[in-house]
Structures are given as structure tokens and as C-alpha cells.
């Protein structure tokens, strides 16, 4: 390593400036469009399924962006992100189940969930962030599996495999009128009823927005720069005097806390919490796919990746089903197009993407190379 010091003067010329400017504009434009669409989702896409999709996108943007803090900005690969997501969700769900559907239950349960996530992240971080990245990946994978087993086995608290169903504060019930018209029915704005469901959506949307902006702030802060310095060259960062383990653990805790917040939003929106929707390894895979497809280390990539993947999940399957039906006379093809096999195609796309565009969509457009 000693050789590098004398030759730092020779910088790489940036010949791609013009191209990346257009790319940046594209990315910001896309993100702005997505933001606008989400902000107006109840009015633009009033049907129930679209509402589900929009709310899921909001929650996952937070979840995936917090994961990007780890994988993209710090170079940590963790498989325990669903564990923290689940802690937030289960904390909220259990508190509502025992205390009844009030905001104080959400606050208390969610708070406990967040604290639990922070403590666990601190433990795991201090324990294993000092060793190799790959070791850390294995430790988190093991931890996440144990959490999943615990959730399904401590059925007295968690409802086991079935999970917990509960009601949420009355304000968010579809029957609640935010503004009543002369007949006592919920007032309609552009044909959309101003009811509790709308309030719930905006609760999720605004919380997600605040969390996302908070993470943007973190990335732009000195902490963000230190983390990137560590990612680029751990030994040098250590030599300059940064306590690498401390910074890594700090960002791991922050990411865990944000993931727990996303879990709270998920729990409130779904009125249900179970291993399948918050803890399963499939969700972890989703997060990973979303962040890589969107582009690691950009934050904007998380937004793009989540939207793309979620739309694919909801609508590509329909398309595949049509394809399978149309090709039912052929051998093998219908099996390959079976909607249940959609992960096969996604997996293949994912591998190709990691080979050829490791910076993901946003990263490639913005000209950010992934470190080699």
C-alpha cells in the first residue's frame, strides 16, 4: 500500500461529464415523477389494488434506502434487514393487540421495536463488524433465520405462522369521515372519498417521505463522507484515525432503526403482521434485488428499484400468466412462463445486471462506477 501515497497526483480524467449530466437529469426526473405519483396516488389510481401497490412502494422505499446506507454507502452486506423490519412490525402489532387500537399503542410498541432493533444491531455490529465482510454476511444470515424461527415458535406472542391480525386507530378506518358533506357522508374530492383510508395512506406516505429525506440528510452529512472513505479504502481510513468499527456499527444501527420504522408503517397499513410479510427470506431477497437493480450508493436508486420491482411483482405475473395460457400447446414453455416461476427470470436478469451494470439503473445513468 505504501506505493500509492507518492502517486496520488495522477488523477483520472473525467471525460464522461456531459453524458452523466443528462443521466442525472433523467434520474432526478424519474424520482420526481415517482414522488409526484405517490403523493397523488389516491387520486390518480383510486382502485384498491393500486392503493396496496402505492403503500407498499412507500414502505419499501424507506426499507430499501436504509439498506442502501449499508450496502451502497458502507459496503456492508447484511442479511438481517428483515429482522429489524420485523421487529418494528411485531412491536407495533403486539402492542396494538394487547393495548387496543390507539396511537399510544403504536408509539409504545413501535418504540420498543425500534429500541430492540438498535440494541440487536449494536450487539451484532460490535461483535462481527470487525471481521471480514463475508463473515458479517454469514452472521447476519444466521441471526435473521433465528429471528424467523423465534417468530414462528413463540406463538403465544407472535401468533406463530399465522401472524397477528388487529385493528388500527379509528382515524384510519375506511368508515371514518375526515370531512362530512351535508348528507353526513364523507366529502369527495375529485371523486375520491376523504375517509380514514385516505388518512392512513397519507400517514404512510408522509412518514416515508420524512424518513427518506432524513436518510438523504445523513448521506450528505460528514458521517456519510466518512463512510464512503471507509468503503473506498478501509486501511487508509483507519490510518487517518477513523475508528472504522465504530462508524460501521453506527450506520448499521441507523439503518436498523429506519428499517424498524418501515416495519411500523407496514404493520399499520396491513393491519396484519406475520412471518411471511415482514420476516421471510423472500423479502430479504426482494430488498437485495431492488437496491442492486436501482443502483447501490445513490439513494435515488432505491426509489427506482422499488418501483420497478414492485410493479413487476404485481403486474409481470399477470403478463406471464397470459403468456403461459397462450403457449399452453407448446412443451415446457408454459412451465417456464408459469407466474410462480417469475423469480427464475428475475434471478437471471439480476445476474446479468450485476455482471454488466453493477452500478444499477441510477448508478449507470449518473455515471457512478461501483468500486472494483
Amino acid at each position, binding site marked *: 500500500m*505504501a*506505493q*500509492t*501515497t*507518492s*502517486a*496520488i497526483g*495522477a*488523477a*483520472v480524467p473525467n471525460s464522461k461529464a456531459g453524458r452523466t449530466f443528462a443521466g442525472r437529469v433523467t434520474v432526478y426526473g424519474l424520482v420526481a415523477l415517482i414522488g409526484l405519483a405517490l403523493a397523488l396516488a389516491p387520486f390518480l389510481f383510486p382502485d384498491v389494488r393500486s392503493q396496496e401497490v402505492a403503500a407498499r412502494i412507500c414502505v419499501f422505499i424507506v426499507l430499501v434506502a436504509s439498506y442502501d446506507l449499508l450496502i451502497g454507502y458502507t459496503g456492508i452486506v447484511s442479511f438481517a434487514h428483515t429482522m429489524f423490519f420485523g421487529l418494528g412490525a411485531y412491536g407495533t402489532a403486539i402492542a396494538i393487540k394487547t393495548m387496543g387500537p390507539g396511537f399510544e399503542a403504536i408509539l409504545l410498541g413501535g418504540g420498543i421495536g425500534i429500541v430492540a432493533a438498535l440494541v440487536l444491531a449494536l450487539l451484532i455490529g460490535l461483535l462481527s463488524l470487525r471481521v471480514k465482510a463475508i463473515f458479517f454476511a454469514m452472521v447476519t444470515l444466521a441471526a435473521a433465520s433465528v429471528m424467523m424461527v423465534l417468530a414462528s415458535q413463540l406463538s403465544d406472542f407472535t401468533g406463530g405462522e399465522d401472524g397477528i391480525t388487529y385493528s388500527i386507530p379509528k382515524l384510519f378506518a375506511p368508515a371514518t369521515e375526515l370531512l362530512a358533506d351535508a348528507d353526513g357522508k364523507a366529502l369527495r374530492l375529485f371523486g375520491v372519498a376523504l375517509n380514514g383510508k385516505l388518512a392512513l395512506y397519507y400517514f404512510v406516505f408522509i412518514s416515508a417521505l420524512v424518513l427518506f429525506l432524513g436518510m438523504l440528510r445523513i448521506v450528505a452529512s460528514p458521517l456519510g463522507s466518512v463512510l464512503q472513505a471507509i468503503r473506498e479504502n478501509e486501511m487508509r481510513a483507519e490510518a487517518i484515525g477513523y475508528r472504522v468499527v465504530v462508524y460501521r456499527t453506527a450506520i448499521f444501527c441507523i439503518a436498523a432503526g429506519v428499517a424498524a420504522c418501515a416495519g411500523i408503517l407496514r404493520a399499520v397499513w396491513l393491519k396484519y403482521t406475520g412471518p411471511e410479510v415482514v420476516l421471510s427470506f423472500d423479502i430479504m431477497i426482494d430488498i437485495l434485488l431492488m437496491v442492486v437493480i436501482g443502483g447501490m450508493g445513490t439513494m435515488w436508486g432505491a426509489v427506482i428499484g422499488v418501483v420497478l420491482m414492485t410493479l413487476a411483482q404485481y403486474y409481470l405475473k399477470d403478463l406471464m400468466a397470459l403468456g403461459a395460457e397462450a403457449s399452453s400447446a407448446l412443451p415446457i414453455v408454459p412451465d417456464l412462463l408459469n407466474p410462480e416461476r417469475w423469480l427464475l427470470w428475475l434471478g437471471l436478469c439480476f445476474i446479468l445486471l450485476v455482471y454488466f451494470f453493477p452500478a444499477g439503473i441510477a448508478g449507470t445513468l449518473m455515471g457512478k462506477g461501483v468500486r472494483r
Partner: protein
Amino acid sequence: MAPVLQLDDVHTDIAQYQILHGVSLAIPQGGVHVILGRNGAGKTTTLRTIMGLWKARSGSVRFRGDDITRLSTPDIAQRGIAFVPENMGIFGGLTVEENMRLATKDGSFDTQRLNRVHGIFPAMAQFWTKPAHALSGGQKQMLAVSRAIIERRDLILVDEPTKGLAPAIIRNMITAFREIAEETTILLVEQNFYFAKALGQSVAVIDDGRIVHSGTMAELASDAGLQSRFLSLSLEAH
């Protein structure tokens, strides 16, 4: 006589940093030849580029007249270049014998050569069956050099063999290298001018990825002006 090793305008980058800015060097057959330079000047990079562990971006490395610039490390090694890296590259979990056996061509020892190595470094015979991680720093260095000479090689690259060694062991090393140089060529990278002066026939001084001086060791050793120009750092240290 044609040089055994010739570098021509070699440029090497590590990640985005350019380390060697056109190194040219000719090493004649036989004897000990030294590259001196301060930390970060590009000494190790030069050796690693010769060995193919880092690839030159441009320029050429010729060994006995053949271009080896683009060859893989194993191919370069098989052509008869041995490498003793800065960290010695000892396999700590293997015994001294196993370490040496790996360096033989077909896994068996030539008794005569083995006796010669044991003659140069008696400690190797003494610790023959011990795991290498149990050796002292000096003994590890001896093992690393032994490995390089257990087969006949045309060129041995040695990266700072005196680093961290006690003066008594350094004197031992000087004797050993002199004996080894009787049958082969040694290219030595050093910061320790005392050691370099005792061994070297020719010397090149590298700074900032370029050769800034080359000539005979006798010339450099006797010319205080040259020394202060090129080696101020090294001389202060010794």
C-alpha cells in the same frame, strides 16, 4: 553480455493511481543488483510487475531476451524467476520441509542442493519438521530465501530482506547472499544502504516511479554528493 532482465519504459497502475512512470532498467547476468529508494517510490511495484503480480499498462519486461510482460505469474515463475516478497510469503501452517518441497520442481529434493541450502542456513535443517509459523522473523526470512534457491533459478527477486531484522542476522544474510550470488543473479530492493553497499555490484535509485540514477555501487558508495542527492533519507536512517 546480454542482460538477464531488461525493463523498458514500464508503466504500472494500481487502481486509479499511476505508480510506475516509465521504469527502464537492465540487470546484467550474475551478482547482486540493488534498487534503492524511499518508501512509496515504486520499488515493490517494480518487483511485482516483473513477477506479473501486477500487470504493466505499457512498456515491456524481457527476461533472457523473451518478452514476459503479459505472461501469468506461474508462467513467469516457471521460466526461472524466484520471488521473495516483502512479507516473505511463508506458509505458516506448513512445516519448513513442506514450504521447501513446494518450491521444488517435482516434489522431491535434490540432495546436493538441499545440503547446500542447509549449509547456508543451518537453522533450516534444525527446524526442518517444525511448522513455519513457529519460526522467528529472521528464520522466516531465511526460509523464504531457501525456497528461492532450492531449485536453480536464473534470477531471484528479493524485496527488503532486512526489514525488521537484527544487525547480527543482517550480517548473516550478507554472507548468505554473497554465496547465493555465485551461481545466480539477485535483484534486491532495499532501503538499508549499509546492506545494499555490502552486496551490490550495480545500483539503481528509484523515486516517484522513475529511475533517477543508475551506475555501479562503488561509484555511489564513494561519492557523498550523489548519496546526499539521492539517498538523503536512507542515510539519515543509518
